[in-house]
Structures are given as C-alpha cells and as structure tokens.
C-alpha cells in the first residue's frame, strides 16, 4: 500500500555512498549535517509547505479533472504520472532556486566554504536535502495508489517503477536548478534559467517535437536528440521496466549538473 513511501528513501540515499568512499565516515557526517540544516531551513520557511500543498493540489487536479482519471476506467496511474514532467518543470526550480543563490546573497557561502569540509560535501548535502523534500511531496500522493487499488486490480509493479521514475526525474531537474542557482545571487534569474534548461530536457524527446524533426532530419539525428530528453527515459520507465540505461541517464544528468555546480562555485571564488 505504502510502497512509494518505503521506496523513496532507498533511492535517495544511493548517491551518498560515493562521497563516503572518498572521505570516509566524516564526509558522510558532514553531508548529513548540511542536509539536516537545509531541511530545517525548508521547513522553517514556507517553501516546503507551499511546495507540497501546491504539488498535491495540482497532481490531483490534472489527474482527476483534466485527464479524467475515473472516466478512463483503467486500473493504472498513467493519467497521474503523465503530468509530472510538466508540473516539475515549474515546481522543482522553485524549490531549487534558493539552494546556492541564497548562500551567495546572504554571504553565508563564505562561512560554509571556510569550514573544514570539501565543496563536494556541501553540494551533495544540499542537493539531497532538497531531493528529500521532493520525495516527501511525491510520497504524499499515496492516496491515489490506494484509490486505484480499491477500484481495480492495477499492476503495482508498474506503479512502483513509475514512482521511482518520477523521483529520478525530479532529481534530474533539481540538479539543473542547483547548477543555475550557483550561477547567480538572484533567485528569479536562477528560476527562469532553470525552467528553460528543464524545458529543453523535456522538449528534446516530446513526440510533437520528434515528429516535427523526423520530417526533415535523418532518424539517427532525431534519436540522438531524443536520447537527451527526460521524456524518452521517463516514459520508458513508466511502462514498468526499469532499464539500467534509463537509470544511468538520470544519474548522469545529476552527476554532470552537480559537477558543473562545483566548477561554477570554484570559478566564482577564483574571481
């Protein structure tokens, strides 16, 4: 019943294993300290609550009112998950935009980076904290799983895979937001740039765009562009098959964006 709730933390903790190898137990402790502070920050301000409430309202609205969850008469959650890439497009940058720009605006980045920790520990800690907020919002959609199980006999394996895919998708968007928020002390700029980059990640593989491209471009070109799209990989996971290539794709996006974040922060410090 609460499969999604159980699943979320397991996926979240996976990236933390990597820095542990590099710096041992103290590295992990630093990451957790930073993540803890960040989560406290989210819940001390209205950001986390507003995000969770809006996310739940909008997923409900789109799944039931727009996609006609009941009228479809199908025991699956396609009507629910189909909207996630578009909802995340605006909601995830709203969560991530403050991640580094706020540190720069307040000057606390100077405190943080003169502590005896590596910039990587700060980057990963902050990212994980924000991802956990997104995971919590996603987990709170569990009533729809209960509903569909009450009404019919859905394939819960597919639903579980879709939840995992949705979480990975939000992580990929979040890493883009982390990167753009490191570029500027202005949260609005960070938000807009992040939305545009995420929109590119969606559109590159969105059927209307790929269909348009395929009219004049060769198939391999369309496929290459589409391979960069979160849609291609998200839809493939939604079919209930967690292909390692799709998982690898999302973690590559996260890894690349967080690495770029570290480069931007270093460049900013170097002047």
């Amino acid at each position, binding site marked *: 019943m609460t499969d999604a709730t159980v699943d979320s933390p397991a996926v979240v903790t996976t990236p933390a294993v990597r820095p542990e190898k590099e710096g041992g137990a*103290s590295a992990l*402790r*630093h990451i957790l*300290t*930073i993540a803890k*502070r960040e989560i*406290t*920050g989210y819940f*001390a*301000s209205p950001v986390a609550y507003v995000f969770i409430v809006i996310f739940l309202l909008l997923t409900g609205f789109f799944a039931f009112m727009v996609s006609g969850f009941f009228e479809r008469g199908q025991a699956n959650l396609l009507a629910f998950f189909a909207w996630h890439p578009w909802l995340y497009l605006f909601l995830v940058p709203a969560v991530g935009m403050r991640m580094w720009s706020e540190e720069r605006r*307040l*000057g*606390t980045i*100077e*405190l943080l*980076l*003169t*502590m*005896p*920790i*590596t910039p990587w520990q700060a980057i990963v800690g902050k990212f994980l904290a924000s991802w956990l907020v997104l995971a919590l919002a996603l987990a709170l959609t569990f009533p729809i799983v209960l509903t569909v199980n009450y009404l019919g006999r859905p394939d819960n394996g597919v639903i579980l895979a879709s939840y995992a895919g949705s979480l990975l998708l939000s992580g990929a968007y979040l890493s883009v937001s982390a990167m753009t928020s490191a570029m500027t002390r202005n949260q609005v700029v960070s938000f807009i740039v992040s939305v545009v980059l995420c929109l590119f990640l969606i559109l590159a593989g969105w059927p209307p765009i790929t269909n348009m491209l395929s009219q004049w471009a060769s198939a391999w070109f369309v496929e290459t562009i589409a391979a960069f799209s979160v849609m291609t990989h998200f839809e493939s996971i939604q079919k209930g098959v967690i292909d390692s290539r799709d998982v690898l794709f999302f973690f590559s996006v996260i890894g690349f964006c967080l690495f770029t974040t570290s480069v931007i922060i270093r460049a900013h*410090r*170097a*002047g």
Partner: protein
Amino acid sequence: MIEVRNLKKSFGAKTAVNGVSFKVEMGEVLGFLGPNGAGKSTTMRMITGFIPPSDGEVFVGGFNMLDNPIPAKRLIGYLPENAPSYADMTVLGFLGFAAELRGMRGEAKKRAIDRVVEMCFLESVLHQSIETLSKGYRHRTCFAQSIIHDPAVLVLDEPTDGLDPNQKHEVRTLIKKMGRTKAIVFSTHILEEVEAACSRAIIIDRGQIVANGTPEELKQRSEHAGAVTVRLLDGSSAAVTHKLDQLPAVGKCTVLSEAPVTVRAYLKKNGARGELAREIGEVAATEGWRIEELHTEEGRLDDVFRAITRPETKQEEAA
C-alpha cells in the same frame, strides 16, 4: 601560526592584493589597517581559504592552504565581513550546525555551545530566530560561531563594525584576552582599536604593505611624535617662539593659539626625546614663564595612517 608569502590576487585587470607577506605567531594580535578597498578583506579571504590566491602561498599551522585545505581550515575560526548567518535558524541551531561541521558531537558540542554563549552573552536570545535579532546580537552570534572550536588561529574581518560603543569595548577586551593564547588577525577602520587590542599592526594600501610594527613604533613615525606643547598663563606668543627657537633641541615652533599662549615645539631631526621638555622647562624657569601645561606628544596613529595611505580621490588623480 599564519604565514603569508608574497600573496597576490587580481580580479580581471584589477589587482586587489599585490605581494603581501607577513607572519603571525602564537600570542600575537595583528591589526590590519587600511583604507576601503585596500585589499584587507581579500587578503583575509585568501588566508581562510575562501578564495584561492593568484600567486603566493598561505600556511596555517604549517599546512599549505592550497594543497591541504581541510587541516588548515580546522585550525581557523573566521568571522567574515558583515557577519553573515542563516537568518532562518535559531541561535542555538546555528551554533550547533557550526559545532557539528567542526566535528563536535553530543556532550562536546553541548559544552562548546555553552562556552561561547556565555562568552558572547547570547543566553537571552538562544531560542530566537536569527532574523528577529538586532544587528549587535547577529554580529555576536557569528562571532560565537568563529570561536566555537576554540581555534588556534582567529581571523576577524571588522569584528566591531556596527556595534555600539559598549559592545565594541567588550569585543576588544575579548580579542585582547584571547590573543594571549592564539594567533589573531583582525581588520578595522578604527585606529584606537589597534592601540587597545593589537600587539602589532600592518597598514595596507592599494594591495601592498606600507607599514608594519607595534602600535608604538608606528606612532613614532608621526611628525608630532616627541613634540612638546606648552601653554602659558601670560606672555606673548612672539616672545615665547623667539626664545624656543634658540634652544638646541628645537627644530621648529608653531603657535597653536594666542590666548592663552600655546606653542608647540617640534624636535629636531634625530634629536633625543626628553631633551626638548627639559630644555623648555629650564628656559621657562629662567624667563619666569608661568606654565599652565607642558606635555610631550605621543604621536597619533591617524596622522601616520593619513600620511602613508593616500585617499581614494588622490589615487584616481594619480592613475
């Protein structure tokens, strides 16, 4: 504890710090003086490892800040300019966060927080959110963060900025007290602060060190150092200057005021201090001057400061 070798930093075409070298040993309090934009904060940011130098090296406790930043940073407590802190946290939460990043857990963390809360008088605001605090409390919260791990090296960028006179006095006393067992570098605009708390001062201008010595040594560089001011109950300034000019130790005399007659006699170049006051005393006795006041000037740091750092406008004209 701190050694800075030929430190340079350029931002694009602008050179902020240009070849700064100095050492700070345990038990020393180094005052960092200089006009705005002289490169004080940039130097401190390089010492604490926030920004990498364009050239030169920083050693803290023997660790090179570039090659080995983590052990070097462990030794340092840092109060950045404007004392930033996380506005959404409580004072207790913020200090706990700093303690944990400094590797303290459980009982050790609790003791460290108790210690700095007492030192910085934060008991009354411990559970308040930082954004609701006055500037003085916010400043002290960030200061508390910098000493939470009882660091061997303390780098303070304008630690008394924005505090009221009482708080300034408290911070100065604290710095002086801690300076006996630590190596401290702090920057300031307030020259009396240097005299009150520093064992040594460096004046930096346009990215370069222009003076380095104890506050007493620096004051000696003032043109007023060793001059004697004499104020009489009667007599005329012309007659007094005439007599004083004939004294062997006097370089020149200036009349500060006519009534009451006040004259300042400057020491000749390479003249011995004390000589001047004695000679003036003797001439006053023979002439029967009724002296109201006679004292030897110590020299003032702000004279030295003004003499060796050029104000912003003159720099631009020169450029």
